């Protein structure tokens, strides 16, 4: 994967996946122009210091990859039991045949494929596309934009409560060849609306799979968005994501990111607290083993007064794996009476496991309450002994302690079926590592 291939493929898209108005073509073209000016980062780049992307980008990928998945295979990828509408994407393309969206185009709600709405929703797209995505500093966002094809386009009207959750399932199928998947999701929610969105990535196939995902979200005044990002698939694959959320006044954004799947995960999560009184709660749980890597970069931008941010990321690092947490909180000059809290806690299970934890706080306002911290340790011997003294084996005792450590994050998932799925998956993962 190199810049020339990306440019070439962007050109292919321009001739094959077109919009009548040319809106998407000009978005892609702008990104291609930016691409000329930047390079893939190496370890000298502060933002990528601990996360080596070389193996990821030196591989060759198919950009238009076919799939061997058919109707009878789909169920095995789906988390059962959720009261949710489901949007299925295979290799980045919306699959109407596998999706079930009961309320996609009624009552002013729009939940549909981005690609089929380039022209119908031209204004909505041009108003929001790329508003909070930096094309100059994060090359993967630039690549994603240059290769804009499909994704989900959601618009929730004012005062609307999305009673069914929306479950977006991204299947990366590399059964035919190494596969690069590009996905671009745009989610706009109206005033006083509420919605819960589940985004899950799963990998299928023996070749290399790599998804580059950009989620642009806009939370209207007094609205509430829950976003549960599930990266727990057992198959190996790589994921780079950017989720940027712009929040109007008094809006609430709850995010829970669960990562113990794949082989390489880098999440960027930006919460832009534009409106007064807005708040975000960012939770994350990551577990790495073997030589896997999970890297969470978060950025909370306090623009306005009286906003609250609360962030807690927890990690369990085993074997020769690597965890990265980089959390930046910026409190701008006008953001008086900000409450910002950030914490990162890690348990290292081996001498060769590594965590790079970097909480950052930059404050330019004078009347604020902010705190941040990071703590990394091993399994507490006293706790372990206490549990063993009740007749429980050392292995099981460790698993109990780690489950307890993780549960604080799992508890944040406000969907019983999803929670149960994660609890089972966690149990399996902990058995694998302890």
């Amino acid at each position, binding site marked *: 994967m190199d810049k020339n291939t990306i440019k070439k493929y962007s050109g292919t898209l321009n001739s094959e996946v077109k919009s009548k108005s040319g809106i998407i073509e000009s978005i892609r073209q702008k990104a291609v122009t930016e691409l000329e000016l930047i390079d893939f980062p190496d370890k000298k780049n502060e933002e990528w210091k601990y996360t080596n992307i070389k193996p990821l980008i030196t591989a060759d990928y198919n950009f238009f990859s076919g799939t061997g998945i058919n109707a009878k295979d789909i169920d095995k990828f789906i988390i059962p039991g959720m009261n949710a509408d489901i949007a299925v994407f295979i290799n980045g393309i919306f699959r109407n045949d596998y999706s079930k969206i009961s309320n996609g185009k009624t009552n002013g709600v729009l939940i549909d494929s981005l690609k089929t709405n380039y022209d119908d929703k031209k204004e909505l797209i041009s108003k929001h596309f790329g508003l909070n995505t930096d094309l100059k500093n994060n090359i993967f966002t630039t690549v994603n934009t240059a290769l804009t094809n499909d994704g989900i386009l959601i618009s929730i009207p004012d005062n609307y409560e999305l009673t069914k959750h929306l479950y977006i399932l991204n299947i990366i199928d590399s059964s035919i060849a190494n596969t690069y998947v590009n996905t671009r999701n745009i989610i706009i929610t109206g005033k006083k609306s509420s919605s819960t969105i589940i985004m899950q990535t799963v990998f299928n196939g023996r070749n290399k799979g790599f998804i580059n995902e950009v989620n642009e979200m806009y939370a209207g005044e007094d609205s509430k968005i829950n976003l549960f990002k599930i990266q727990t698939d057992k198959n190996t694959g790589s994921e780079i994501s950017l989720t940027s959320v712009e929040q109007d006044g008094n809006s609430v954004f709850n995010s829970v990111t669960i990562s113990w799947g794949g082989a390489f995960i880098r999440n960027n999560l930006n919460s832009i607290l534009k409106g007064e009184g807005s708040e975000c709660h960012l939770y994350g749980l990551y577990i790495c083993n073997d030589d896997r890597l999970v890297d969470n970069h978060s950025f909370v931008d306090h623009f306005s007064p009286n906003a609250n941010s609360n962030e807690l990321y927890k990690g369990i690092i085993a074997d020769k794996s690597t965890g990265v947490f980089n959390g930046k909180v910026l409190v701008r000059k006008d953001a008086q009476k900000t409450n910002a809290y950030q914490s990162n806690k890690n348990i290292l299970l081996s001498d060769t496991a590594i965590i790079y934890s970097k909480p950052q706080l930059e404050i330019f306002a004078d009347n604020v309450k902010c705190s941040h911290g990071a703590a990394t340790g091993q399994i507490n011997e006293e706790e372990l002994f206490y549990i063993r003294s009740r007749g429980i084996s050392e292995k*099981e005792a460790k698993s109990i*302690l780690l489950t*307890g450590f993780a549960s604080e994050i799992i508890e944040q998932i406000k969907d019983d079926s999803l929670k149960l799925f994660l609890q089972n998956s966690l149990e399996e993962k902990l058995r694998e590592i302890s």
Partner: protein
Amino acid sequence: MLKIKNLRAGIEGKEILKGINLDVKVGEVHAIMGPNGSGKSTLSSVLAGRDTFEVYEGEITYNGKNLFEFSPEDRAREGIFLAFQYPVEIPGVSNTNFMKTAINEIRKYKGLEPLSSVEFLKMLKEKAALVELDKEMTSRYVNVGFSGGEKKRNEIFQLAMLNPLLSILDETDSGLDIDALKIVADGVNKLKSKENSFIVITHYQRLLNYIIPDFVHVLNEGRIIKSGDRKLALELEEKGYDWIKNNEGIKV
């Protein structure tokens, strides 16, 4: 049931127990009293198998088997229970799940089937009532946010659930007010039988007003310097530890 012969043990090369001999038979209650730093907690930790403590010499047999060959979990499975002086908080793990896992691991060791949920819940309810632990506390995370008294009651609740043969109460009375002390002691008395034994470790005589010991041993500087019956505890209460230290070597 438990025979300790010339036990010398300590931590990081520092000898704390300097030759303990103790013989606990089935159905007996032994009290071990002693001032701070006399080695009471070291003894309980060694019995439970805490590996930060080192054994330099001596032997402990439990039901005829060498105790040192058992891991902490196997000691529990063989029927030894330690009520901790400072019970540990375990966030994220409910009391109920903790006990269910413990009971079923012990049953597995004994070749028994796991308890059914109905049986387990029935037992949980019974045993919780024994130490007046309300239902809400059994579903809470283990010891998290519990008061000192609640933590100690929770230890006795666990004891009741696991139904051990040999229970070691390590300063279970410390930090308890008189009401909590009575609840804990009542619980222990209800659990006491001809089949099980107790070692009650305490600094004060107070607890022994409620849990009546068959034997009282005074531990000082790593040695049992005096053994007797219940009266010894009362005498100690009256005269203080200095009395006995000054009369070291006089056996009753």
